[in-house]
């Protein structure tokens, strides 16, 4: 691996770790600031296909399909006094791994894939939820910073074992 690639990988690992820290610590404004205005944030519904047929997710139905405007609504809602689903917030821990930089144009754009495992615990509940999947991200460089312009999250369950997606993936 060339030194440029090693540095790029390191750069995006740090970006993803910082992102995880912001949402795990419920800094939604801080998290929202990482988003590009052209954001496309999607999580398709995963399906059980016959045999090896791929892709095994729907191209028509999504658990999340947001742009910057609807994402802003979600974030604003969490700040009203009525967002019961996350009041008090879940304790979450986002584990990011298997980071791979697929495309990298310095100070311009990048395509980065990574694995994500979210641990979620609510209230006094002794159960916890685990959400696992792959993030396929695209980044755009704006005024000295990488912004997330596209996220496609492929979740590893066809039936989600969590009460809602009041948390971000």
């Amino acid at each position, binding site marked *: 691996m060339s030194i440029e690639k090693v540095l790029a990988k390191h750069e995006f690992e740090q970006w993803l770790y910082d992102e995880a820290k912001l949402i795990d610590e419920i800094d939604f404004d801080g998290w929202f600031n990482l988003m590009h205005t052209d954001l496309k944030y999607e999580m398709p519904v995963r399906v059980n296909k016959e045999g090896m047929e791929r892709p095994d997710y729907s191209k028509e139905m999504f658990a999340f399909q947001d742009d910057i405007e609807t994402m802003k609504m979600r974030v604003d809602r969490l700040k009203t006094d009525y967002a019961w689903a996350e009041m008090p917030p879940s304790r979450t821990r986002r584990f990011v791994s298997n980071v791979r930089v697929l495309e990298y144009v310095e100070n311009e754009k990048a395509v980065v894939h990574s694995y994500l495992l979210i641990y979620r615990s609510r209230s006094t509940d002794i159960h916890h939820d685990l959400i696992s999947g792959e993030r396929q991200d695209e980044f755009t460089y704006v005024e000295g910073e990488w912004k997330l312009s596209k996220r496609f999250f492929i979740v590893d369950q066809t039936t*989600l074992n969590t009460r809602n997606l009041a948390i971000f993936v």
Partner: protein
Amino acid sequence: MIETKTNVHLDEMSREEVANYLSETVRPEDGVIPAYIMGDENVNKLEHEKIFMKTWLLLGHESELPNKGDFITRDLAGYSVIVSRGQDGSLRAFYNMCTHRGMKLCRADKGNKGQFTCPYHGFTYKNSGELIGVPLQKDIYGGQLDMEKMSLHNVTLDTYKGLIFGTWNENPEPLLEFLGDFKWYLDIVVGRTEMEVIGPPQKFIVHSQWKIGSDNFVSDSYHTMVTHGSIAKLGMVPNAAYSKKGYQVHVKNGHGCNIGMPNPDFAFPEELIPEYKENLSSDQFELMSNVKNMIGTVFPNLSFLVSHTKVKGKLISNTTLRLWKPIAPDKMEVMTWFLVDKNASEDWKYRSRESYILTFSPSGIFEQDDTEVFTDITQAAAGTLPIVKNFNYNYTMGMHREPVKDFIGPGVVYPDKFTEAGSRNFYSYWLDMMKA
């Protein structure tokens, strides 16, 4: 003083005794619903036998399998079934179990197949259910295997306006009679024009008793002000009290809905008005022209919703179905389908789906606050405490009200959505079934 009956042990009672105990304690006519029915294992077991094995349950929508050979696999009362469209174009459903030695025949959610081959020993069935192939049959069975008797186990099936219902009951009340006057309202939701389901249904697990979902949709508009208070704050609906205006309807067999109206705006694509007029009576069309939302439940666990909100400054409606499928006394799988008017413009369809995902999908900003409440109610109803302490819920809201006589649609109708009449009706039919 709370009456303490530490001697009540449902687990030691016969089914008949449980039913009798329910009769004594579940008193919808007085607005009294005991908390234990939301958590008790024995009640849950009896519900499975007396309700889920007996009534019509939703399996899906015809648009999910439009072509010959299309199939979907779904649960019917917790048992996997294959729904398939045969080469003759008609729909059939079977228990997803090989009649040889019980292997699950099909593991995909959907697909297109004229026949199914069992992964265990290779028995092959036509999509109409007949066993047509057994490897080495002549040799190993000496030609004695009576293949005609080994068809897949049949599920009783019927449809209404695209909705596919199945039941394990071989002699059910005909579907049209079971739905009764509720058809009038269902027509507006799923029969106003040709509707299509977009994509697969979304599924998620909630640690909640299934009845809480059905009950919430059958009569609880009251919670909207508080539980969904954030939505008014975002300006997606006019104000927190908007949810009170309108009517609440219930009919026999436990079905019921809430109709939010009036609405200064037409909630559906206007260019389809000629189609709506063709498919609906003029009274139904008049109601449809005025609705802001329609929220209801077809007994026992199918709920529907038409919701008209403002997304990105523009009004848009979405139509969804949801099933509250019990998997344990304190756990259900929620399954939601998004439906859209087939001949609507691509722009309308896109925006309608977007509003569904934003509001009522698993990430939906309405949906998520409901599931939080459902989970906590379930937790508080669990264990022996609710039964020994005789904890009851209060379902008396609106009991002082008289139904209106001049409403445009059928059923018992109240001129205000804030009443628990629909829930009282739901639980009284529930009780009838549990006693039957």
